[in-house]
């Protein structure tokens, strides 16, 4: 799927749909809000692929791993499909289910953390995507334990809200920036 930009020099953002099956009803809810943001940024287009599909990662400029429904944890049964994260050198942003996948692939577990609310997120380490304290749209029952290859970037009262790989441009956020903090997605795409 592509936006209407016909520029041949367009860079392509891969959005990975983490919902339980390809073309599920949740694709519209969790992937399309991200596409609305990419459509507003010149020289970028997008493709949405479900995690179960065969993907040629080399053709993409950046990768966004989208969130999924609160009750949908099917992606945790297919973590082998996300092993590519360890080997490629493309910037990645994991959102909600995406940060959980980053943690699990790097060997740490999820941690009970129910936040279905507008949450106060506090930056704990200076980074390229955000700063200070800000309100975020959160819908999750689990946060993560930070893998040793990553550092914490932000927290809420209840748990980790953002991480970054120590040596690569791989970010994870527990909240949904595509809903309330669109500038974070824009900044990531323009990295």
């Amino acid at each position, binding site marked *: 799927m592509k936006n209407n930009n016909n520029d041949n020099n367009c860079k392509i953002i891969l959005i990975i749909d983490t919902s339980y099956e390809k073309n599920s*009803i949740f694709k519209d809810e969790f992937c399309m809000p991200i596409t609305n943001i990419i459509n507003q940024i010149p020289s970028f287009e997008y493709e949405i692929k479900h995690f179960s599909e065969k993907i040629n990662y080399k053709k993409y400029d950046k990768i966004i791993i989208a969130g999924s429904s*609160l*009750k949908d944890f099917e992606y945790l049964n297919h973590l082998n499909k996300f092993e590519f994260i360890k080997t490629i050198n493309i910037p990645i942003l994991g959102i909600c289910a995406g940060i959980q996948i980053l943690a699990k692939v790097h060997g740490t577990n999820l941690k009970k953390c129910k936040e*279905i609310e507008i949450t106060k997120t506090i930056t704990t380490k200076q980074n390229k995507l955000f700063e200070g304290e800000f309100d975020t749209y959160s819908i999750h*029952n689990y946060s993560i334990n930070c893998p040793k290859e990553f550092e914490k970037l932000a927290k809420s009262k209840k748990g980790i809200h953002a991480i970054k790989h120590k040596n690569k441009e791989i970010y994870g956020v527990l909240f949904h920036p595509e809903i309330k903090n669109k500038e974070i997605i824009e900044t990531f795409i323009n990295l």
Partner: protein
Amino acid sequence: MKLGILFSGGKDSNYALFKTAQKHNIVCLISLISENKESYMFQSCGNEFLKLQAKALNLPLIEVKTKGEKETELKDLKKAIKLAIKKYGIEGIVSGAIKSNYQSLRIQNICNDLDIYSINPLWQTDEKNYLNELLKNKFEIMIIQIASYPFTKNMLGKIIDEKTKTELINTSDKYSISCVGEGGEFETFVLNSPLFQKKLQIISSEKIMESENGGYLQIKEMELIKK
């Protein structure tokens, strides 16, 4: 998946129903009948004719009355959803939420508490594209309530066709308001959709204005007719 839908009779719940029904089995409509016209969560105009829409859709309708006050409304909603789980075995709730974090988070919380899916197929949808989709799929939508400048009495009873769509888009561009009424600027009632087996026809109605830019269409009589 067996699902129930939060149903107001307006375009958003009807379009969410249409989109979801292409992939899942919608088994009941759930409607909160709010006594408060300023309801925080639910459209309150046109409720009396929901039964006719349910008949047109050939789906059972669960109606639960609510005073429409901020938090009791949520308790009443939870009660209605519990009833739908018990009676029809639903595994999830569909809503027509587009932009409202307030509405979306509260429904997500209730579904999480009851361990069922919350499904929002119109979430963050592009509003202008959405209007086009409604017309492309031949939804017949009437504006039945207005609550914002610059809308006046002549908007009441209008069908959203190409001309009205252009008027709504131009108005939204000029006054920075939502062209789909997401900020409560106007409310709608659906007279026909691809899922209706019969269509609705208004026999008599009256425009009631409460201020220059606030009023509603009081539908007095309506019937189901062949499509």
